[in-house]
């Protein structure tokens, strides 16, 4: 397994293909795709802050526009790629395409287009949902899940567009610079992906919940899978660490930037008089377990995948708990109520007798419950790693 776990990009001799010899720079649509995914990530964080500071507002908030700009950009890019590769004059010459229901384009274009359609579908569905059941502030509802699935679809599509270009460039030494740029873009989008996973888990990883099992189980399911996949697909030995760093940097930037802007709640009940945009909570320190995974994977290339996966799940969870558990004590202390850690920011509807405002842990787990829960989380991590390693390896061979 040594060679397949972390191959060196320029060591092998690959057949020069028509496409790789042409690929001298990063295609324009990849830059636009990266912009689209960035826009939705910023929009998502901004929108959550908007709902926590101002409350529900019109559809035309800048945060919503940033989210839907992702769909519009994806539609333009994918529409162009599908049209040009199916009906274009040079359609026959461009062979780095796949066939979906008779249309031809790179695989990533189809996935991103699918994501765009899912986003569009979610809009009337969500609208009806709110009319039928109320305008809930829950992130995890069926129509929101479809929207997030759509946004994620666009992200995966762009990731595959980069990946195919990257995989083709990896055979050519003359394309080393292009490969490096693509790899950086891939890791950046991967980092946004990790941010997306953590965004979806916001309700589970609230700082007051960090002494219970549920956030660790949620992260055990969501993170090792994606770290293993990104690590394999990117061929970069610090992939987990660098993508975790992207997440933490963005989250800390949010704490530093958002409170600079004044905001007032437009809706009651107001339990806490908000005066400025409320940022998300301080990020989970996933940088540490990610670094541990990178170090492990660099040293275990000769191991069988299932043993790597087994050890990875337990290592990830052990390091995460060792770092985050004491850090949660700090987050709930007075010492963290400052501009950097930002634990003094609350939603307008956080009640004075709520756990968040009182800064006390919610339903702490102890003893056997805690041990069994963390064990379960580690096992999920191992399963996730195994799937991620295999899927990542498959991704590395994607050419179209």
């Amino acid at each position: 397994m040594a060679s397949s776990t972390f191959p060196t990009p320029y060591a092998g001799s690959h057949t020069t293909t028509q496409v790789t010899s042409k690929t001298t720079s990063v295609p324009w649509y990849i830059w636009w795709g990266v912009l689209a995914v960035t826009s939705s990530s910023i929009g998502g964080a901004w929108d959550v802050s908007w709902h926590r500071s101002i409350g529900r507002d019109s559809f035309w908030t800048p945060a919503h526009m940033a989210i839907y700009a992702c769909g519009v950009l994806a539609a333009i890019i994918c529409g162009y790629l599908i049209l040009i590769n199916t009906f274009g004059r040079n359609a026959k010459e461009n062979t780095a395409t796949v066939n979906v229901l008779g249309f031809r384009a790179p695989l990533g274009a189809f996935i991103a287009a699918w994501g765009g359609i899912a986003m569009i579908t979610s809009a009337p569905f969500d609208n009806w949902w709110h009319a039928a059941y109320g305008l809930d502030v829950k992130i995890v509802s069926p129509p929101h899940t479809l929207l997030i699935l759509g946004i994620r679809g666009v992200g995966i599509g762009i990731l595959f567009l980069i990946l195919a270009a990257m995989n083709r460039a990896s055979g050519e030494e003359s394309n080393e610079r292009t490969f490096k740029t693509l790899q950086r873009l891939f890791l950046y989008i991967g980092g946004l992906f990790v941010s997306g996973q953590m965004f979806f888990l916001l309700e589970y990883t609230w700082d007051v919940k960090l002494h219970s099992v549920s956030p660790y189980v949620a992260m055990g399911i969501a993170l090792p899978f994606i770290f293993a996949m990104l690590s394999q697909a990117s061929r970069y030995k610090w992939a987990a660490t660098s993508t975790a760093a992207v997440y933490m940097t963005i989250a800390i930037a949010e704490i530093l930037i958002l409170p600079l802007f004044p905001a007032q709640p437009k809706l009651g009940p107001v339990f806490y008089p908000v005066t400025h945009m409320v940022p998300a909570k301080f990020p989970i320190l996933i940088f540490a377990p990610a670094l541990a995974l990178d170090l492990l994977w660099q040293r275990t290339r000769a191991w069988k995948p299932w043993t790597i996966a087994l050890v990875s799940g337990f290592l990830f969870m052990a390091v995460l708990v060792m770092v985050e558990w004491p850090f949660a004590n700090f987050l709930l202390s007075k010492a963290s109520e400052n501009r950097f850690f930002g634990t003094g920011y609350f939603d307008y509807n956080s009640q004075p007798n709520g756990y968040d405002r009182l800064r006390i842990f919610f339903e702490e787990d102890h003893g056997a419950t805690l041990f069994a829960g963390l064990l379960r989380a580690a096992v999920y991590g191992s399963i996730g790693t195994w799937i991620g390693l295999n899927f990542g390896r498959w991704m590395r061979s994607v050419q179209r």
Partner: protein
Amino acid sequence: MNCLSKPIRLLLFFALLFALPHAVQAHVGSKDVYEQVNAGPYKLFVTIRTPTVIPGVATVEVRSSGATVKNIHITPLPITGEASKHPPTSDPMKASTADPAFFTGNIWMMASGSWQVRFDVSGDAGDQVVSVPVPAVAISTLKMQHGLGITLGILGLFLVVSMAGIVAAAVRDARLEPGATPSPNRKRKAILATICSLAFMALLLWGGATWWNVEAAAYSLNVYHPMSVSPSLSGNLLNLNVAAYDGDKERASRSNKDFLPDHGHLMHLYAIREPEMDAVFHLHPELASIGDFRISLPTMPAGEYKLYGDIVHANGFPETLVSTITVPANMPGTPPGADDASGYPQPLSHGELGNSYKLPDGYTMVWDRPATVSANTAYAFHFHLIDGDGKPASDVQPYMGMAGHAAFVKTDGTVFAHTHPEGSAAMAALMLANGSSGTDHNTMNMDMSAHNEPLSSTVEFPYGFPSSGRYRIFVQMKHSATIETGAFDVIVP
């Protein structure tokens, strides 16, 4: 309850439809608030059309009279508790271009409970503030329109089919060197992958549909139900036991120990003989112990009675508790209380009552019936009390602090609204919202017994019928020591 057949529902999670039975709210089946309030010299006729789901949007309409109003800002906030101290930013109402005295606006009701809309009014007479209480509750869930269901179904089907196509392409083509053609083996694998992906998506959709059901069931728990009341009649002693709640969050704000007096009474009980609505009693049971209202009934004709008991909770949230009793023949009767009233209009089956109602003591009550009456339109209905000589009554007295009380009752029993000249909001809630302390009993009791000047012989009630159908309106006014009950019928087209 679903519009689409079961297989489609399962396959297209998106087309799953729900509808829950329409439920009642403060009053019965009459959710909107119609209120006439004075903000200093400004007189506002306020209509608040509350949403059927919470959170949701309420529309607010104001017709101003009195001093000229330039602009109005509206703010929703709870009547009591911590959040009542932190109003959100207000929203301006929009003045109609055709009629500058008519203003419209929208507000979000973000949580169930006892709310108020605060009106900040400015105009020729300076700035004034007045609040109107709004009980905010979810009363139903929506059914999905057929067209939307089909559109979402088609989009959903397309998403499933195209995803299967993408999976097939990923397996068949994605890993091929550009220019190469897929081998038969890859093609076979692609077919297998397509089948597996379809099965997987079916599983996801099934999971999604289950999740949807769970969410819908959880939501339906938040749909408002009034507190349950059990009536029991022994001799002529009526006991109304209001059950304590140990239930969910929404109901935690309502208990059977937190009743506020409204017009001097903890409960205003209307007993209407069914099905002919030919006997009506407005009674005032006393609280004997926690949650136990008791009254010795006056002499009543035998038959089945529908009971509508109006109460107000400490946070200003009003409820109408509905039950039925059967009064046996020859039930002994106790003399009615000072504020109790009764009336015996002709049975419904004898035809429609007109605009003039002959009272037993020779007086007449007259309704200025509007030329047309339509559902969901705000009206100020005027009634006059005429004495035995055909002149406007000159001895009108306040009846429990008000110029009159009215009950708008739909003959099928689905609507009951007990209203006052100020409007359909409970007086106790109106006073709480406008800053009277709940402990100020003189104010809360609306003790106007010291009122010596006779009142006008005309009384008006702001109200809008919530739906079409036949209604009977009971109007009560007092002159000298007599409490009159007039009755009028209206068919709302």
